[in-house]
C-alpha cells in the first residue's frame, strides 16, 4: 500500500466529525464524549482523524509539502483507532488509521522520523527489544518458572512474552500470574526464551514497516519450531500485531492467537481459574474492590481478526470486511473481572470499541511524553469518576502509562487513590487473598533499566 492508495478515503471525508466523538448513540455525558486524544489535546482540526486525511490530501494534491510540520501532525497521534470506529459507524469507504500509517511510513522515507522512534528501531535491531536492553537478559524473569523451552521442546502453547513484560520488573507479578493462568490450562506451555524478539508492532506504528516484516518472519519460524497449536500473549500490543497486522502483511503464524484474558475467561467459566491461585487463605480474604476496566486499543478495536481485503470499490465494501472495532476482545476481560471474589465491577462511559486510549501507542510514549501522559491522565479521571478504586487493564503498556500519569498527578498534588493493575495480577490477588504470586524487591521499570 502507499499513501496514494488512500486518496479516495481522503477525498471521501465529509468532515462530519464523527471521528472526534464516541459514537453518537453512545454519548452519555458531555465530559466523556470525545474519542480522539489527538484533537482533544491539540484542538485544531488538522489533528483530528478527518483533519489528518485533509493534510494528507493537501500533500498529494501539491498544495503543501510533506515537511516537518506535516510530520508533527501525523505523529501527534496515538494511532488508537478511535477515530476509525466513529467514522465506520457510518462509512464503509474510509480507513483512517491505515491512511495515517502510510503517512508515517512516508515521513520515515522522507527523513522526518522522530529521533525517539529511530532510537526505538535501533534498539530493536540491536537487541530485539524496544528498550535496547540486553537480549540475553530477556528471559531472566523466567528463571524459576520451569516453562518449557519452545526452541527445543514441542509445546501446545507458545507464550510470547513481549518486550515490556520481559524487562519490566514492576509488572512481574502480572506476568507470573499470567504464567499461572496458562499452566492451569493443563497444556504444555513454553516460551522462546532469549530467542524471543519484539513483535515489531511499535516500530510499524511509527512508520517502520520493514521491522514488522523482519520480526514477523522470525516469529513465524519460532511458532513453527515450537509445534504449538496456539500462541498466547499477555500484551495487547503483541496481540494486535499477531492477530491483525501479521496476516494483513502476509505473516501467517498458522495457529490461533489468544490473549491471556480470553484464556482466563474460559477458566473462569468452568471454575478452574480459582485453582490457579488458590492458597490456604483464598477467597475469604479477598479485598473488596470497586474495579473498572480499561480496554487496550490493541486488544480491542485494533486487535480484531483480520478479515482480508475487499476486492472492489470501497464504497461497496461490506461491513464484515472492514475494521470497525466491534470484533475486538471486550467480553473476556470483563468476564474474568466479574468472576473474581471481592470485585464490584463498574464501567466507564468510554468502553469497548469506543474506549479512550491510554496514550502509550503510536510512538507517543517514546516521542511525545507530555501528550502521552495527558491522555492517560484523562483516562484516570474517567476511571475515578466511576467511584472505582482499581483500574484494571490487559496490557503492560497501558499499565505503565497509567502509572506514570498517576505519579504525575501525585507530583502535582492530586492524591486521589486508584490502583492500576494488570488483569492477571488482579485475579491472583483476589483469588489468593492478596498474596502476590512472587515476591519482587526493588522492582525496576524497563525505562529505568535502559537508562
Amino acid at each position, binding site marked *: 500500500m502507499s499513501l496514494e492508495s488512500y486518496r479516495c478515503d481522503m477525498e471521501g471525508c465529509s468532515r*462530519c466529525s*464523527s471521528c472526534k466523538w464516541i459514537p453518537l448513540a453512545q*454519548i452519555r455525558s*458531555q465530559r466523556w*464524549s470525545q474519542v480522539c486524544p489527538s484533537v482533544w489535546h491539540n484542538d485544531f482540526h488538522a489533528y483530528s482523524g478527518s483533519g489528518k486525511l485533509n*493534510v494528507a490530501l493537501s500533500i498529494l494534491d501539491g*498544495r503543501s509539502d510533506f515537511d516537518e*510540520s506535516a510530520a508533527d*501532525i501525523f505523529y501527534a497521534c496515538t494511532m488508537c483507532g478511535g477515530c476509525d470506529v466513529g467514522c465506520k459507524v457510518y462509512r464503509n469507504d474510509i480507513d483512517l488509521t491505515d491512511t495515517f500509517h502510510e503517512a508515517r511510513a512516508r515521513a520515515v522515507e522522507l527523513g522526518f522520523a522522530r529521533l525517539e522512534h529511530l532510537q526505538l528501531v535501533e534498539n530493536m535491531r540491536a537487541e530485539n527489544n524496544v528498550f535496547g536492553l540486553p537480549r540475553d537478559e530477556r528471559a531472566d524473569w523466567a528463571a524459576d518458572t520451569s516453562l518449557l523451552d519452545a526452541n527445543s521442546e514441542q509445546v501446545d502453547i507458545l507464550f510470547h512474552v513481549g518486550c515490556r513484560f520481559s524487562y519490566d520488573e514492576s509488572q512481574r507479578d502480572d506476568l507470573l500470574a499470567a504464567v499461572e493462568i496458562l499452566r492451569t490450562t493443563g497444556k504444555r506451555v513454553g516460551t522462546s526464551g532469549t530467542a524471543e524478539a519484539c513483535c515489531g508492532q511499535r516500530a510499524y506504528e511509527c512508520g517502520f514497516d520493514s521491522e514488522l516484516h523482519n520480526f514477523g518472519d522470525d516469529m513465524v519460524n519460532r511458532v513453527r519450531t515450537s509445534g504449538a497449536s496456539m500462541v498466547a500473549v499477555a500484551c495487547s500490543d503483541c496481540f494486535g500485531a499477531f492477530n491483525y497486522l501479521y496476516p494483513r502483511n502476509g505473516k501467517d503464524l498458522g495457529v490461533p492467537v489468544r490473549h491471556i484474558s480470553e484464556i482466563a475467561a474460559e477458566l473462569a467459566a468452568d471454575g478452574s481459574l480459582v485453582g490457579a491461585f488458590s492458597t490456604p487463605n483464598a477467597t475469604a480474604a479477598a479485598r473488596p474492590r470497586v474495579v473498572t476496566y480499561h480496554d487496550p486499543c490493541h486488544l480491542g478495536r485494533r486487535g480484531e481478526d483480520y478479515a482480508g481485503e475487499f476486492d472492489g470499490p470501497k464504497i461497496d465494501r461490506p461491513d464484515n470486511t472492514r475494521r470497525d472495532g466491534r470484533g475486538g476482545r471486550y467480553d473476556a476481560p470483563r468476564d474474568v473481572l466479574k468472576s473474581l471474589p471481592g470485585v464490584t465491577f463498574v464501567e466507564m462511559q468510554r468502553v469497548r470499541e469506543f474506549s479512550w486510549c491510554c496514550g502509550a501507542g503510536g510512538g507517543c510514549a517514546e516521542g511525545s511524553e507530555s501528550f502521552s501522559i495527558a491522555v492517560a491522565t484523562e483516562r484516570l479521571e474517567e476511571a475515578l469518576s466511576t467511584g472505582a478504586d482499581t483500574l484494571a487493564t490487559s496490557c503492560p503498556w497501558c499499565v505503565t502509562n497509567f502509572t506514570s500519569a498517576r505519579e504525575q498527578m501525585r507530583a502535582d498534588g492530586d492524591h486521589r487513590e486508584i490502583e492500576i493493575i494488570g488483569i492477571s495480577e488482579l485475579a491472583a490477588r483476589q483469588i489468593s487473598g492478596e498474596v502476590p504470586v512472587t515476591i519482587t524487591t526493588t522492582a525496576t521499570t524497563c525505562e529505568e533499566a535502559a537508562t
Partner: protein
Amino acid sequence: MSLATDLIGEPIGADALSDLRSAVGERWVRTDPHVLDSYAAQPFHKVEVGVWIHRPIAVVMPGDATEVAAVVKACNRHHLRFKAFSTGWGAHAGAGFDNVVQIDLRRMNRILELDIENRTIVVEPYVTCAQIQAEVMRHGLNLHIHGAGSNCSPLANATSHMGMGFSSISMGYSPRNLMGIEWILPTGELVQVGSFATGAGWVSPDGPGPSLRGAIRGFAGADGGIGVFTRVGLKLYPWSGPAEIEVSGGSFRGMQVEIPPLNGSFMCIFSNLEDYGDALYDIGYAGIGYAQFKAATGLGLAIGEPELFRRIRDEPGFREQVRAFENQFIVIIGGHTQEHFDYEVAVLGDIVSEHNGTMNSTDGLMATGRGGLWWAVIRNSIAPGMFRPTGNFYSSMGGDEAIANALRQATVGEELKEGFIAEGSCADDLVDNAHTLLYENGLYAHTEELVLYDHRDREQNRKLKGLSDTVMHSIVERTLGGGGFSFFAGAYAHEVLGPHMENYHLWQRRLKSALDPEDLSDSKYFINSEGVEAAGHG
C-alpha cells in the same frame, strides 16, 4: 473548474498576524498550510467541483466572546474577511473567499446554565446536541435536534443555518427555540439579544421592543455572513425515557436498544399519496407525536442495508415492490403516562386505519436492530449515515409550508430526480427521497429532496450545479414553498429567488450593508453588501 491548487491566497501579513495573536494568544493562531488546508477541505454541500474551498489565511481559536470580538475587530482593522464555525460541517462553514480568517469556536464548549424548572439551557458554540441531550435526559428533558444530527452545534443551527428535525412535530424549528443570543456584530461590537441583555436571564429572545432575531436570521441563517454568535439560550422539552439508554450490538447498524416504557416507534404505510397526506393532516389536528418523519425508502435502505439496497435497486421486480412502500412515515410516541401513551398510540391507529393504511412497530426493523431505529431518531445519530451509500449527498427544495405544498414538492421532486438519475447527475436511490416531516402539531411541513452522489466522481460532481439550479428554478416556476436549501448554492441564489419573493434580497443586502459596511463577515452563503462586488461564487 478549480484545480486542487487553486483557492490558495497570499499569506497573512505580519501586522495582522500579530493582532490576531494579541487577540487570542499565540498558541491559538495557526497559519501553517497543513492546518489551514484542514479547514479548506469541505466537500459537503458544495456545488463547485472537488474537495477544496478557499484556504483560510489563518485559523484562530478564541476562548470566549471577548476574544471573538477582539478577533473581529482585528479583522476590521486589517480589512480581512472572517468566518466563524462551531462544529463546522459543510462548505458553508468554511471560507468563501481568499483572505478569510477562520474562527474555530471549538474552545467555547461550555454548558453555562441549566434551568430545569423553566426548561432552558445556555450553551456556547461547541456544545453538541448529543452532549446536551445526554446531560438533560437525566432531568427528564430533551432538546430539538436538527436534521444535521447530534454531532452538530445547536447554537450554530439555531442562529445561522436551518432547523428542521425529526422532533419538529413536538419541538418546532431551531430558531424558534432560541431564548436569547449573544452576537458579535461584523464590526466587532457585542450585542445581547433578548432578556439577558438587561440582566433578566433567558426568558425571552425578543425585545426590548423589536426583536433583533430578525436581523440575525430568517427561515435560513446567514451561515456566518452576519457576525459571530457566542452564546445562546435554548428551549428544552420533556423526555419520558430513562436518564441513560443502554446501547449494545453496535452504534448504528445492529444497534440493540430496549425501547423504554411510555415510548414507541411506528411505521405507517399508505397505498397512495392522498391517504398519506390526509393522515398527516389528521395527525396534526390530533396533536399527537413526539417525533415524525418520512423514512425515504431508498435512502433508508441504502444507509441501513447497503448490500440489500444494491440488489433491490438493480432488480426491476424488487424495485417496484419496494417503491410501493414509498407512502410511509414513522411516528415516535412518547407518553407522559401509560394512559397518555396508550391514547396516542390508539389515535395514531385510528388515523392510519381511516386512511386505509397499516401501522407496525419499527422495533427490530432492518439492520438497526431491536429498538435501534427508535434511538437513532431520538438521538438523531442518523445524519452522517447519509454519506454511506455514495460518499456525498445534496439537499434541495425545503421551503416549508402547508402539508399540501410539501406533497407538491415531493411529487415535483420525484419528477425532477427521474431526470437527474437518467442523465447521471446523481445516483439511483429508487427516486423516492423526499422526506416530509411536520412542525408544531402539524401546522406546516417540511420536505427536502435529497440526491445521492459522489463528489469523487468528477463527472457527476460537475453536474451538481446544474441539478441545483434546475431545482432552484423549479421552486419559482412551480411555486414550491420557498427558497429552502437553495442558499447552499451560494449567494447568487438570491438573484434568482429574490425577484419572485418580494425582492427580499434587496432588503437582506441593505441590512447586511448596515451591519457589515465593509462586507467582512464572509458572505458567500449570505449576501454581499451593497456596492461590494460579489466574488467567490465559482
